[in-house]
């Protein structure tokens, strides 16, 4: 039976046109998300979305009452979804507080809540995120097909994204919006490649104000717009840059305007400022200062190399340097969902350069999902227990208690996944800077340094499975 089914799907796949193949991938991606989303849920974030919507509904906007700690773009998206719910749906109850779940709030990991959102509300919040997952999958296919001119690789790229465990988990289970961050950055890249620079600027501002990681790519984007290898006169390139700048500034002002008027600007950017103040506090500040200085050097070199890239290599250098910049920013704070913003770029590189990047992608995609699975454990089944009557809350409380008792095991898994993610990000970074090992100003001066570069090249080529030529 199994063999018959596999044969059937294999023959269907091979007989299908490219358009049908991407549709098949998207449908499978949709199916597994639709099947899982009503039953398995991470309780905490979706609770926060319900809280924010009730704050808005009470007439207190996004920041007057406790709830939203992100920059306003996500609040606006939520508000739009809330508007749809209010105008067209019959979802009247956002959530309920279950007394039998109260002990989960006292777990060592404090991100659990006994006020569980309803299945209807959870699905309403997940639908836009699932749609975003599919959209990113399609855009990756579209971009890779155009960039690599290879249908198979483009389909692989889309599949990498659609079936990446952390991508699936964060939208379908976690109700976290990092896929939206990936969408905005990917769309910015596509728009700039198409010379649609005003729109590119508008979308980039949304990307930067949604979660701040894309902001670090701004110098690369600018260098790409005016790159020597791109067609067009200096005047045209200046116009392109001007349009991008106008788009970015305009959208930033429009997004932040209510907060500026209401005096809530500090609250609206607290997601950014709080993280920076945490990173730069106490003994961490020296480490962070050094890292920032090193990061600045990387940014300057990457920006310059994007600008001077040969005409044939402009896109190659653009993608490689975007990934080069984003990877270290993810390493500063290894939160599992953050990595999603760089996955499209990692997928592009994996589709183009093969095994080594694919390995990084696999490790990041799997290790980052093990992290929330280890931490959240059976609490992910709260919907099943409370709304569907499968099992009981005591079982969840008991297993969480056991997990707390096996604290060392849980932490071992947790730290193991963090180390794996860290190494994968580090390897990604080294892969992006590999051309530097081949050709740089220090080459041919000191033998020891040459040996070091050769050794790094050799190791990276071993992982790649071929001799890399920049």
């Amino acid at each position: 039976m199994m063999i018959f089914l596999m044969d059937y799907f294999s023959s269907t796949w091979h007989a299908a046109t490219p358009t049908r193949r991407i549709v098949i991938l998207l449908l499978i991606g949709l199916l597994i998300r639709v099947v899982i989303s009503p039953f398995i849920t991470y309780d905490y974030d979706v609770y926060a979305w319900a809280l924010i919507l009730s704050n808005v509904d009470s007439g207190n906007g996004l920041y007057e009452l406790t709830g939203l700690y992100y920059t306003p773009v996500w609040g606006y998206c939520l508000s739009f979804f809330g508007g749809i719910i209010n105008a067209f749906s019959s979802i009247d109850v956002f959530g309920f507080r279950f007394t039998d779940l109260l002990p989960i709030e006292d777990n060592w990991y404090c991100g659990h809540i006994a006020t569980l959102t309803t299945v209807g509300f959870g699905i309403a919040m997940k639908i836009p995120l699932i749609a975003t997952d599919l959209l990113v999958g399609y855009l990756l296919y579209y971009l890779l097909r155009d960039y690599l001119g290879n249908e198979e690789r483009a389909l692989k790229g889309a599949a990498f994204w659609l079936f990446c465990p952390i991508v699936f988990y964060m939208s379908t289970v976690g109700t976290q919006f990092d896929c939206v961050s990936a969408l905005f950055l990917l769309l910015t890249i596509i728009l700039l490649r198409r010379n649609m620079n005003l729109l590119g600027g508008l979308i980039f501002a949304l990307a930067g104000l949604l979660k701040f990681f894309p902001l670090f790519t701004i110098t690369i984007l600018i260098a790409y717009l005016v790159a020597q290898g791109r067609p067009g006169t200096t005047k045209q390139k200046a116009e392109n840059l001007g349009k991008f700048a106008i788009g970015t500034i305009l959208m930033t002002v429009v997004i932040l305007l209510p907060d500026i008027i209401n005096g809530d600007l500090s609250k609206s950017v607290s997601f950014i400022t709080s993280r920076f103040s945490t990173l730069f506090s106490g003994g961490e500040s020296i480490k962070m200062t050094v890292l920032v200085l090193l990061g600045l050097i990387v940014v300057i070199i990457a920006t310059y190399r994007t600008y001077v890239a040969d005409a044939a290599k402009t896109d190659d250098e653009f993608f490689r340097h975007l990934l080069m910049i984003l990877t270290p920013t993810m390493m500063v704070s290894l939160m599992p969902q953050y990595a999603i913003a760089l996955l499209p770029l990692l997928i592009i590189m994996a589709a183009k350069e093969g095994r080594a990047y694919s390995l990084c992608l696999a490790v990041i995609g799997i290790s980052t999902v093990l992290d929330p699975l280890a931490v959240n454990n059976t609490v992910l089944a709260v919907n099943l227990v409370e709304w569907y009557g499968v099992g009981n809350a005591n079982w969840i409380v008991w297993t969480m208690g056991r997990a707390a008792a096996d604290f060392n095991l849980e932490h071992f898994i947790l730290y193991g996944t963090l180390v794996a993610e860290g190494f994968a990000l580090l390897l990604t970074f080294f892969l992006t800077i590999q051309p530097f090992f081949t050709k740089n100003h220090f080459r041919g001066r000191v033998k020891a340094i040459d040996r070091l570069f050769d050794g790094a090249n050799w190791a990276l080529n071993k992982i790649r499975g071929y001799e890399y030529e920049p």
Partner: protein
Amino acid sequence: MSMNRDKKLLTALAVVIIAVVLIGEVLAYANVREYNANVTYRDEEASWSVSSNGSSNFNFVISDNGTFTATDEYIIYYDETYCTAYDSTKMTVIGQMNAQEYYIDQLIKTLAYKGVTDIAVVDAAALAEKLTGDLAETDCTTALIVVSGALPATVYTGQTDDLILQWLDNGGRLYWSGNALGRYYSTENELFKVSGYQELFFGIECLNGEIDDNKAYEDVTANNYRYVLSLSNNQTLYGVDSSNLSNCLTLGYTDGQYSSIALVQHGNGMICIFGGNYTDYQRADLSQVIAAGLCYCSEIVYENSGSVIRTTVTGTAQLLSATDNYAGYIYIGGYFPSFGRTFYS
């Protein structure tokens, strides 16, 4: 796809995304939600209605408050120059902005959308002046909310004839959270500990004065306020053990001895204790109990809940008597409230 068509589709996609965000921005600040509620008491019936222009659920509860008159004025004590005795380090829910000033700011905004708007914030001197003024009235109907963990020395020094105790005897209503009531009083420079403070306020020792965090995992079952008011805070630290208290209403959650919320008669007035340290949940419960107009002798005589989806829902509640003292509280949103109104008979 041709390049031209590509560009059109990409433009359409970008425009749709921008439209979603900008429409969301308008919806976030344009205050498009409309709610309404009304209760009319006539003979032994209460006719009620609730409406919403969105997809909502409502809860409606009528409490019989015996002879306890409704509060007509709320004051919140806040004096940044005076010492405080609260612990805001343990936040179980979202958020870390937990200073006293923020707590009060949030409480006022929450009470506002629940229809309680006559609120004044007073410092230590103004508090003493206000309470002294209330003493001159025969029937005080003012409520004082204190979240500083320590009363100021202008009204309390641990003596039986302190202004706050006289004010309570005269009908004042004290809503308290943040520490054990009466354990401390404060001046601008110092925090003073009081011995025998529980007897001053309750006549007996009944407070959970432990320092460690205490939680409750059971509902108070003597009444159904836990559910009809969507109460959330399950902390019992500083909470009340009502077993030896007369004229006391406990609600919310219980650990078997102490409850998360207790309303206790004191003279002609009332003390209302909210257990635990500052949390969003505690503040939510505080606003619910205030908005619902509850007192130590409240009894549920009618409760209803349901959907109100882009329509108006009406009903009639049968009451026990035409002359009783009722408080009807209608709110929308359950555990995620966005509107509330109270109607007294």
